[in-house]
């Protein structure tokens, strides 16, 4: 028996995050698909690498946790970068075990692809023939990457339906912690300081940015984290040009109030 990549029919037309990517996969293209928030590298129509400014690169992931010293990384880039076989070199020179490199690289690939395939109005560009210096590690079919990206969007929405924590600077709330915060979320929470965004926290911890989004949505759902309010936009400017002040009706529920209500009901 051999390992099987899950083969399932392609996504229905229109559901795909990038119809252009579908076409490139069908024609088994090789090159770089540059989108607003990241780049996907294809070889023979399969995704071999992805990068996004929103996510830590594989170098950050490997060196932050101590799997690789940064000299080791730069040596590999110097030795094998020109030959576009940095991944292979890391394994062959004994710096990173093969399985660890695959796990880390796949994590980085799906992580960057999630952001690269985010909805955008900017047209994508494809440069044929371009390949990435990391070289082949473990190619992934385009349909798997597209489906996983859609699944991840749904997962985030199920946890907490407000996407503001994904991109805004974040602040801790004064809400008391009423359930123990798991260690991984606690490490994220300690870095929330009113200025850092999810991307900053991912870079600092050397963790996949999508993992940080998941933790932040859970922390937001628990009422522990919220988007930092810009200090300048005060309410004075609003009241200046409004002659009749009506009671504000907001679509956003008051989370703190709802939680107090829930706690009170549970205490009955």
């Amino acid at each position, binding site marked *: 028996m051999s*390992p099987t990549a*899950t083969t399932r029919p392609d996504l229905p037309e229109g559901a795909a995050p990038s119809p252009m990517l579908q076409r490139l996969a069908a024609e088994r293209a090789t090159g770089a698909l540059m989108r607003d928030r990241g780049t996907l590298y294809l070889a023979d129509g399969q995704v071999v690498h992805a990068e996004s400014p929103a996510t830590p690169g594989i170098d950050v992931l490997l060196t932050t*946790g101590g799997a690789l010293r940064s000299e080791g990384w730069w040596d590999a880039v110097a030795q094998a970068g020109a030959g576009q076989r940095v991944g292979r070199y890391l394994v062959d020179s004994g710096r990173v075990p093969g399985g*660890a490199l695959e796990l880390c690289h796949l994590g980085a690939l799906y992580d960057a692809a999630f952001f690269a395939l985010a909805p955008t109005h900017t047209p994508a560009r494809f440069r044929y023939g371009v390949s990435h210096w990391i070289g082949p590690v473990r190619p992934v079919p385009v349909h798997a990457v597209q489906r996983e990206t859609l699944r991840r969007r749904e997962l985030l929405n199920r946890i907490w339906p407000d996407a503001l924590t994904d991109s805004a600077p974040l602040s801790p709330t004064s809400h008391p912690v009423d359930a123990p915060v798991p260690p991984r979320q606690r490490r994220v929470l300690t870095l929330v300081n009113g200025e850092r965004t999810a991307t900053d926290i991912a870079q600092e911890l050397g963790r996949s940015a999508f*993992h940080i989004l998941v933790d932040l949505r859970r922390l937001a759902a628990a009422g522990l984290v919220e988007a930092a309010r810009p200090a300048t936009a005060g309410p004075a400017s609003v009241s200046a040009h409004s002659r009749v002040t009506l009671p504000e009706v907001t679509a956003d529920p008051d989370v703190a109030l709802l939680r107090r209500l829930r706690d009170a009901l549970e205490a009955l």
Partner: protein
Amino acid sequence: MPGIDECLIEVMRLPGARGAAVVDWTSGLALGTIGESPNGDHEATAAETAEVARMAAEQPVFAQADAPGGPPGPPAPAVEDVIVTTAPGYHILRFVETAFDSSVFLHLWLDRAEGNLALARIRLGEIAERLVLA
């Protein structure tokens, strides 16, 4: 052991092994799969087992007693594995410890009549170690 596929092939050599997967428990993504899955859909199985693994990994009751004041850096996973027994089979979820930040586990689905749970559990632990060591 060179990589994910070789590791999965080795898992399938265990007596009674019906299917296996390498799964990320934060996202529910299957990074590699082999053999059958209980509901015929490896991706759905991965998402479901990931929830179980996450619940186990995050419960304070299973956390290591020496957690506060421990060495800095990513906390070592306190839970080694989770075993779920059903009428026809066993499911072993074995956490993989990596030198970089990750949330990966190995899932083995074992036939209850043919499988040897004690042996499979020990071997799965060894394979999980070798997957990331060399």
